């Protein structure tokens, strides 16, 4: 009976230590989760701000004049398009002949 009581006591102490450690670990994990969630929230907010800034800075109303004044760009005109079958005509005599690969040549 006495042995049983001692073993029981030890088991209780062991369990108590286990519970304490588990609780401590859970608290630490909770704190870590809260920290990470805070970081995620802050990062999400920063991303949202950056996306809004990007959208604001790249809005057509702003980009159009900048592209025109600084880069000399303009809206695409139909003259700038061509069909694949027209390429040879557009390029004309300036078209460089396509060089056929030499059989057996090593691949670069």
């Amino acid at each position, binding site marked *: 009976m006495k042995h049983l009581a001692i073993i029981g006591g030890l088991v209780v102490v062991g369990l108590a230590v286990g519970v304490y450690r588990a609780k401590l670990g859970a608290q630490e994990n909770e704190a870590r989760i809260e920290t990470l969630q805070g970081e995620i929230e802050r990062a999400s907010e920063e991303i949202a701000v950056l996306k809004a800034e990007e959208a604001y800075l790249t809005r057509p109303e702003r980009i159009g004049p900048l592209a025109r004044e600084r880069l000399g760009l303009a809206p*695409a005109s139909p003259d700038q398009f061509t069909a694949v079958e027209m390429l040879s005509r557009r390029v004309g005599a300036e078209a460089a002949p396509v060089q056929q690969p030499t059989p057996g040549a090593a691949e670069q």
Partner: protein
Amino acid sequence: MTEPDFHARDRRPSGDRWGPWRARLVAGTLALVFAVIVGRSAQISFSGPGGNAAAGPAPEAARRADIVDRNGDLLATSLAAWSLSADPGAIWDAEEVARSLAGVLPELDVPELTAKLSARDRRFVWIVRGITPRQKQAVFALGLEGLRFEEDMRRVYPGGRLAGHLLGFTDIDGKGVEGVENAFDDRLSKGGAPFRLTLDAGAQFALEAELDHAFETFTMKGGAGVIVDASNGAIRAIASWPAIDPNRPGDRTDAAKPNRAMNSLFELGSIYKPLIVAAALEAGELGPDDIFDVSTPIRIGSATVRDSHPLDHPGAVTATDILAYSSNIGAVQIAQRVGPGRQKAFLSDLGLLTRPDFEGPGSAAPLTPAEWDKLTAATVSYGHGISVTPLAFAMSFVPFANGGYRLQPLLLEPGDDAGVKRKQVMTAATAEAVVSMLRQTVLTGTGANAEARGYEVAGKTGTAEKPGPDGYDPDRNITSFAAVFPASRPQFVVLVVLDEAVPRTGDARTAAYTAASIAGRVIARAAPMLDVEPVFDAPASGQAGPRVASDSRTL
């Protein structure tokens, strides 16, 4: 000396016969408590986290979903905003605080703020509302005393005026009150993935920029424009002029408040003529070689229908001529062949007699004639006596561009072509024939100013006098141009409507000189962004390049 009595503990009062039972009861209770403690300890030790740990903190209110265009370009978003307040009683040097704050918030007025912060009898004053997290951090880094921050969410439209009327805006509590923000408030307020519209920001900007250009070229009261993808009904651009900036809804002028593209009703004039031609073709009342005499005005009851610009050979004109040169007399003759009943049924099939039914901001119901008699049929054939929204009318042109199918406007992606409800309202042959006539209208008729090189514009002008208290007013016009392009493989419908547009150059105030030219500019500018390749001549025809207006053999 008395010896100690070592056996005293064994002595019990002879009358305490419950003693052993009490001891057993106490021991049993202790054992039970012990067992419960051990059992619960074991359960906690060997099981996973308890229910409380999993529950976590109470969920916060969802951040309102972003709104993006079909390519994912941001149109509306919600940002954390902060309001900065101060307790003047806790501030030692008001001027220093004011100067420091002005260093990171340049919009602050230092003398005014100094005065505000010097009011030591007050415990609370607002310094600035709605600052960004970055500005808040900058203020925080100053380490000034007596300042407080209040967190809030703020709806931001980074494109400014872009699609302002369509997007609408929210109130101070973040609830949508107009436009898409209002129509989809429930879904947006739940947060989650960005809300993707069918809109193309590039095409939208092109349309809005050309409406601005219209105001530079003409004096006008207002305008509207729509671009619709004819394959699925997707609205690629929709604009109302004057535009609004949803970031500052309070700054809207009265003229800018209505969404003219969706909520204003217009009598749109001769852009109805292609519809009556299609009705006649469908009814078998119009053949390709039919000749009309439009030399004589038509009298219907007390009304007389005339052509304001008589045709060159009015004694013998085709349906193509009637459209190309916008003959009212010819349109009435065709309408008489169709008859009021069939005309009404056809316009009903096109969706012009009922409120547009689609998922999105509400659109106004049309004003239709109470009785559809011969006079009504005559006036409706050239676009008088019936008022619809520009969006509704643009949708009535969609069947011309997709082989004859009526579609509902589509505002939300994904625009799944397979899921689009289609109703065939005319045959592909009819649609093709009308597009061919509309192409001729641009190549040789009143729509010449709408031509966009390479994009084969096929369209119709409409000039309608505005109704006034004393009847129609010849000095106030609604001018419009409805088109499909490219004519040889139609993909899009474009409609431009201008309210009382008068060219500053002194040209006529008809659609040929106003709405047509704006529509052509819209198409030339938006088509590349909508992935429409210009139409090229065949290699045998000579120099490679886009097909131009002088080529009349395209259809």
